[in-house]
């Protein structure tokens, strides 16, 4: 079937099978930031935004995004770089493989939650696994990023 959707701000059409998942479609469209880590919706590496809300693209049929707006990290380069600097200063991207999906969710969280507590941050990001860092460095980066963003707003 043919579907039309907006990918990172651009209208695209794609011919997909009924069982094509969004993860494979966006990678076919050149959005290589979107990674597959588990195939069982446990790891969060394939997180993309659909109409601004985070979704696991490995568990979303491509047909479902017909007429909707999909954003991957390729569409959020400035924001990724801004938060990424905080992450890199902690060394907390390490292998970097989980970073795109994680950053997608951090950016969604920063929009959705106002002044989140440490517990709220951990809960929001619980579905983003990372095997390298032990999560502490990610938390330090998030808290410094949120503090800087808040400082800039005030």
């Amino acid at each position, binding site marked *: 079937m043919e579907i039309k959707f907006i990918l990172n701000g651009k209208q695209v059409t794609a011919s997909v099978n009924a069982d094509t998942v969004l993860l494979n479609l966006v990678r076919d469209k050149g959005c*290589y*930031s*979107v*990674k597959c*880590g*588990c*195939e*069982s919706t*446990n*790891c969060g*590496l394939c997180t993309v935004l659909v109409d601004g809300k985070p979704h696991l693209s490995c568990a979303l049929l491509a047909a479902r995004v017909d007429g909707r707006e999909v954003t*991957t*990290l*390729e569409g959020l*380069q400035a924001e*990724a*770089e801004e*938060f*990424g*600097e905080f*992450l*890199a*200063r*902690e*060394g*907390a*991207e*390490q*292998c*970097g*493989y*989980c*970073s*795109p999906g994680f*950053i997608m969710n951090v950016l969604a969280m920063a929009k959705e939650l106002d002044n989140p507590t440490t517990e709220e941050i*951990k*809960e929001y*990001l*619980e*579905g*983003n*696994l*990372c*095997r*390298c*860092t*032990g*999560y*502490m*460095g*990610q*938390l330090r980066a998030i808290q410094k990023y949120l503090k800087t963003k808040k400082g800039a707003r005030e």
Partner: protein
Amino acid sequence: MKVVNQAIPKVDSKALVTGKPVYTDDIAPKDCLVVKVLRSPHAHALIKNIKTDTAMKVPGIECILTYEDCPDRRFTMAGQTYPEPSPYDRLILDKRVRFVGDAVAVIAGENEAAVLKAMKLIKVEYEVLEPLLDFRKAKDNEILVHPEDNWESLCPVGADNKRNLCASGVEGEGDVDKVLSECEYVIEETYHTKANQQAMMETFRTYTYMDAYGRLNIVSSTQVTFHVRRILATALDIPKSKVRVIKPRIGGGFGAKQTVVAEVYPALVTMKTGKAAKIIYTREESMIASSPRHEMELKVRLGADKDGIIKAIDVYTLSNTGAFGEHGPTTVGLSGHKSIPLYGRLEAFKFAYDVVYTNVMSAGAYRGYGATQGIFAVESAVNELAAKMGVDPVALREKNMVREGQIMPAYYGETAASCGLDRCMARAKEMMNWDEKYPVRDMGNGKVRSVGVAMAMQGSGISAVDTGAVEIKVNDDGFYSLLIGASDMGTGCDTILAQMAADCLDCSMDNIVVSGVDTDVSPYDCGSYASSTTYITGMAVVKTCELLKEKIMAKGAEYMDCPKEEVEFDGTKVFHLSSGKEITLKDIGNNVMCNNEEILSASAAHSSPVSPPPFMVGMAEVEVDKETGKVELLDYAAVVDCGTVINPALARIQTEGGLAQGIGMALYEDVVYDSAGRNFSNSFMQYKIPSRMDVGTIRVEFESSYEPTGPFGAKSIGEIVINTPAPAIAHAVARATGVQVRELPITAEKVYWGMNK
């Protein structure tokens, strides 16, 4: 030190955080064949017949390869220096399958759907054999995992395939039995650690193609780029000159990718078809047919006199290498060599081991590499000794721990030339507020809190084996290229090696470009494992910079027409003090590109006769629910002596990450088989690695010693960090509940039934 000891962001960080296509699957040719492996449903069987004709008719299928298409030449997938201690016990595809998930056939086609369809249409007739699943019964069992005559062990490691032995040995000093018989307190217990998955986020993956020179090119997510070249040439029975291996960015390894798990399959397809091919392991494949930690059972005897001086340690390790012997003979060694020497007042020690074959997936290298298992056992035994004696386990360790300057008889007789273990303990005690928290605290809601402690050591590279080299070239405008043969697997060696070079060459990081591994271009490095890169390859950087500075000064002197003995180099220019002449590095770099007969480049290799141990102390605070046995880790404090810290941010992340993996090993992770050898732990649904809700708070500090043989005084950091959580958490749980869990992981069930015996 201007750049060393600074928290410099990784040189590749911007690409990683913006999601650039830098990993194997991102850069694989779009039209390459998709390769998949048909896997055995039986733990032990002989293939009688494989019928592929129907499957071959599926549109888009390029080839289906079976054992008949593979060389009958055994090899090992272990990424180790030749001659490998791991036995040559594998074929790419074998007539005998040895675990559920073992490779039966390789299918290649134009797309995944066609390959999966064809896989279902292959008809395999098996003669099902009785599997050998209990590693305690493997030695001298009548079922042989490797009865074949062309099985070969290249090194004297006590291997014998007719006894299911991958390795066997005994060593020691003094009369352990006699010393133990004279001890006031003796602990004799058995500890059991399980197979654990490295669970790096990027699964195993490789693509291959033939180049214009008729050579097999292999692009792979590997820690051992040069070993891949040798292993693949051996497995495919082709000259090494016909193989080139390239390592792109890697999405984590932790030892998993020190075994050549997936490379042979697309390589075989490309050799047969001439076409580009790629394999991407599913998470399930990465869980059932990979290279997890060796399951070990360790019997420990440990004795102390009435004053609490630990006089003797006896360790017997039984290690389960599974269907193949990758890293079997070497991991087991660390279970004794990196646990017993933590104690510096021994009068006798003994360490014996057997490594056995069974019909489960092959084990491999996982961070800690046997030390983790040995330290769980010995540190638990020391905690049990403290409990038996009724003394503070911190005080007991302060009395017995190895100190700087001591000879370590159980560690190849090496001297602890740098050892801050005592300072690590003192600082950890402060961080955890040990004296206040050591008593068990009843929280009044059915929950109790307590703390536990463990020490650890590791090595820094494999002494007199590991070899690392780099090359540094001066280019136009005087920028440097640093060519690295060690594989940055995300841990940051491309960055820290550049930091060292920047300090040695008195320049900024911006003046150095690094390039990762290509066996055609990079200088030889055995690879990134055994905690070797900072220590071994780092020293190669220091040596190379010394050579290069000499060459830069000689060139500068030549251009200035001065005697080279009289010039100096400050990083930006070569100058001659007495005449006032000077020439910039930029001009030298540009000048050597015209009318020049001497290349401005240097390269040096390094190896070390010693493997200086980093040391560490970890302390855990847990809360246990006495109704259910559930253990919650609240806080983990760790202090590391890794010598000089080259990059504090990266070293901290390594430590926090290794601790989290150790916490997973202690509390959650287990590879579980059913009675037929089927692996239940085949996804992240079943095999639970810690999420950010499961690790409590992890706090890390450094207490650096100065290692005289290391670059800038550095030792290793990569592996030691996984070793303390299991014994420290087990200790805290034992304090809280009276239940010493001696078989990992420490689940609520084990604690509950321990309390309700």
